[in-house]
C-alpha cells in the first residue's frame, strides 16, 4: 500500500507538465495577440469607416452649402437687376406717363386716354424663418384706352411700353371692339381698344416696420 502511494506518476502529460504549462502560456499569449490584434484592427477599420462617412457627409454639406451660396448669389444678382429695372421701389408717375407717351408717339394727339389709380398693397412678404415683414408687393392699376386704331398698333403699343424700362406691368384685362371710321370717303375698319394693366413693384420695409 505504502509502495503504491510512493510510486511516482508515470503519465507523459504529468511528466511534461511544466513544458505543457509554458506551452499553454505561449498559446494563450498567441491567442491573446490574435484576438487583441483582430479587435484593434477591426476597431481601426470601424473608425476609418466612420471617418470616411463623416468626410462624405461633410462633402455633401459643403456641396449643399455651395449650392445654397450659388442660389443666394443668383438671387442677389437678379435682385440687383430688378432694382436697376425699377422693380424695387415705387415707380415715378411722371416716368410712367413719359413711357406711355413714348410708346404711342406715332399716334395722333388725343387718341390715347389713361387713368392712373392709387397704389395698393397686394401682398406682404414675411421672412420665412422669423416671420418678420420684409417687404410689400404693391401695384399701381392703370387704365389705357384708344379709339379707332388698328389692332396691331395697340399690340405694338403694349409691347413698346413693356420695354421702356420704367417698371414691370401685368395685363389684367383688355378688350378690342370692331369699329370703323370715315377717312376721306371710305369707311376704314378699326378697333376701339382698352386695357387694364397693373404696374407691379416691391417696396422693402425697414426692420421693425410694420404695415400701417
Amino acid at each position, binding site marked *: 500500500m505504502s509502495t503504491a502511494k510512493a510510486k511516482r506518476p508515470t503519465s*507523459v*502529460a*504529468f*511528466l*511534461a507538465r511544466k*513544458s505543457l504549462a*509554458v*506551452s499553454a*502560456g*505561449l*498559446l494563450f*499569449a*498567441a491567442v491573446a*495577440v490574435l484576438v487583441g*490584434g*483582430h479587435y*484593434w*484592427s477591426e476597431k*481601426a477599420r470601424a*473608425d*476609418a469607416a466612420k*471617418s*470616411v462617412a*463623416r*468626410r462624405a*457627409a*461633410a462633402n455633401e*454639406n*459643403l456641396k449643399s*452649402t455651395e449650392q*445654397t*451660396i450659388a442660389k*443666394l448669389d443668383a438671387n*442677389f444678382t*437678379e*435682385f440687383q437687376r*430688378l432694382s436697376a429695372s425699377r*422693380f*424695387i421701389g415705387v415707380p415715378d408717375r411722371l416716368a410712367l406717363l413719359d413711357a406711355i407717351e413714348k410708346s404711342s408717339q406715332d399716334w395722333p394727339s388725343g387718341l390715347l386716354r389713361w387713368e392712373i389709380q392709387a397704389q395698393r398693397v397686394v401682398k406682404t*412678404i414675411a*421672412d*420665412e*424663418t422669423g416671420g418678420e415683414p*420684409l*417687404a410689400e*408687393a404693391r401695384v399701381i392699376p392703370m387704365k389705357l384706352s384708344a379709339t379707332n386704331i388698328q389692332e396691331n398698333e395697340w*399690340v405694338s403699343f*403694349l*409691347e413698346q411700353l413693356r420695354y421702356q424700362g420704367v417698371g414691370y406691368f*401685368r*395685363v389684367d*384685362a*383688355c*378688350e*378690342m371692339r*370692331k369699329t370703323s371710321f370715315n377717312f376721306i370717303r371710305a369707311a376704314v375698319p378699326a378697333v376701339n381698344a382698352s*386695357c387694364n394693366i397693373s404696374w*407691379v413693384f*416691391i417696396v*422693402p420695409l425697414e426692420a421693425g416696420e410694420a404695415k400701417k
Partner: protein
Amino acid sequence: MAHIGILLGYDTVFAYRLTRARAEFLKSAPIAQLDLEDWLKALTGKGVRATIVTDFLDEAYARSPLPPVWSPVARRELIERRLGQQYRGALYKAAIVPPGKGLKPPALASLFSLGQAELVATWVNAIENQGAHLDGIWTFASLAAQAYKSFTHKPSKKGASEKIEDSTPTVLHVIETPSGLRQVLLIDGAPVFSRLALRQGEVIYDLQSACAEAQRTAQYLSSQEWLALKGQALATYVWLAKPDEQTSIPHLTGALNVVSLLAQPDAYSAVLAQWAKLPAALQLLPAEKRLLWRAKTLGREAILASAALLFGASVWLGATAIETRGIQQLAADQLVEAVAKEKKARLDLLRASGDARKAALAEASVAVWKKSIAEQPDQIETLDLLARALTQVPELKIDQIRWRSSDAWAAVPAEQPNAPAPTDLRCAQPSGSSQEPAAAAANPNQDPSTGVPPRVLATLQFTGDVNASLSAKEAAQVQEKFSQVMAGERRRLVVSQPAFETDPNKPYVGILGETGTRRIEQCLEVLDK
C-alpha cells in the same frame, strides 16, 4: 540549447553537432584509449542535449511473424511480451514492425536487441553525470532507414535525373561507414535487419566489393526466411565514400540489383541529419527513461509549436499594426479633412448670408417677380395665334376680343401648396351645358399624377360672324378648321356658340335653303400646365 550526437562506432567514437536538418562533425577518438569524462566535458554540460547512435557489430534481430491482430493495443502487448521473452534481461531492445499492406494488420515484427549494453550504459551515465539531457539512443540502422526514405522521396540536388523512385517494398541499403559496411534490410521502410561487415584494415570499398559483401548478407537473409525473392533480384541502394563513377546503374550482380549508387564521403553526417524524423518506436532507451524522453519530447514540441504560433501571431500583429496604423492615419486625415470642410461650409454660409434680411428680401423679391411678371400669360403671343387662325380661316370675321388675366395675388392654401390658386376665371360654358365637371375631368391637359385640373391663367374671348352664304356643311367645316388651328398645348378652346351646332345632345333649328347670319362665340383658356 546545444544538441550533440555521439556516434559509437566499432572502435571509434564520433561527435557531431546536431540541428534539425544537419549534423556537423566535431571530433572523434578511439574508444579503447578514451578518457570518457574529459572527452565529454568539452562537448556537453548542463542543459546540453545528447543523442547516442550506435554502429555496433553486436546487434540481434529475431524474425517474429504476427497473427492477424486488428487491435493496435493487443498487438503492441503481444509484441512487448514476445520482446521480453526473446531478450530477457536485455537493457536496450525494441520491436520493429513494418506497416501492414492496405487495411491488413502488420504480419511481421523484427525483435531487436542491442549488444555492448555495458558500453552504452557507461556512456549514458557519463553523459548524465555531465548534467546533459540524454535525448535518445538509436541504431545507425534506424537512421539509415530514415535516410533511405528521405533520399528516395526527394530529387537529388544534382539534378532531376538522379531522382530515385521508390516502389519496392523490400530493399537492401548498403552504406560504407568508418566502422565498415553497414547493410540494412528494409521492409516497407522499416529496418527489420541490419549487419555490419567490419572494415579490414584500410580497405576502401568499391561497388564490386560492397556487392560481394551484400550477397553474403542476402544469402543469410534468404536462409533465415527474411527474404523470399522467388527469382527476383533484391533492389539495393549503395552509398560509398568514393564510388567508381564509371559504373553504370542499374547494376545487376547475383541476387542484387543495384538501382542507386551515391557518393557519401561522410555517411555518419548524412545519416545523423535524419535524427529529428525518427519514429519513437525505434527509440532504444529503457522503459523509464523512454517515458521521460517522450515527456521531454512532447514538452519541447508543444513549446516549439506554441512559440511558432506566438511568433506567427506576432508577425501577423506586426503586419496588422502597420496596416492598422495606415488605416488610422487615413482615418485621422479624413477626419481632419471632414472637420475642415464642415468648418469651411459653416464659414461660407455665414459669409454668404451675412445679411440674412437682405438675402431673404432678395429671394422673396425674385420669387414675386417670377410669379407676377415672368410667368404671366403672354397676351401678345395669344393674339398672334388668333391672327394666324383668322388668316387661315378667312370665312370667319371677329368683331370683339376680350382678354382677362387671373389674379396673381390670390393666396394658395398652406395645406395644399401644389393646388392652383383659387380663381373664378374661366370661359363661359355653352348655354344649357351640364357637363362642365365631366369636361374638366376629361380634360386632356389635366395632370394625371395629382388629379388637379390645370389652372386657367387667362382667357381670350372673341365673338364674330361666319360668312352667311356658306352652307351648313361648309360652316361646320370652318368651325372645325378654326378649332384645330387654335388647339394646342396649355390651351383649351370653349365654343359657346358654334357656326353650326354638330352636338347631337343639343337642339338646333333653321330653314332649309335660307341663309342668315351665323354668329360665333368662342373662348380660349390659357392654362398653366
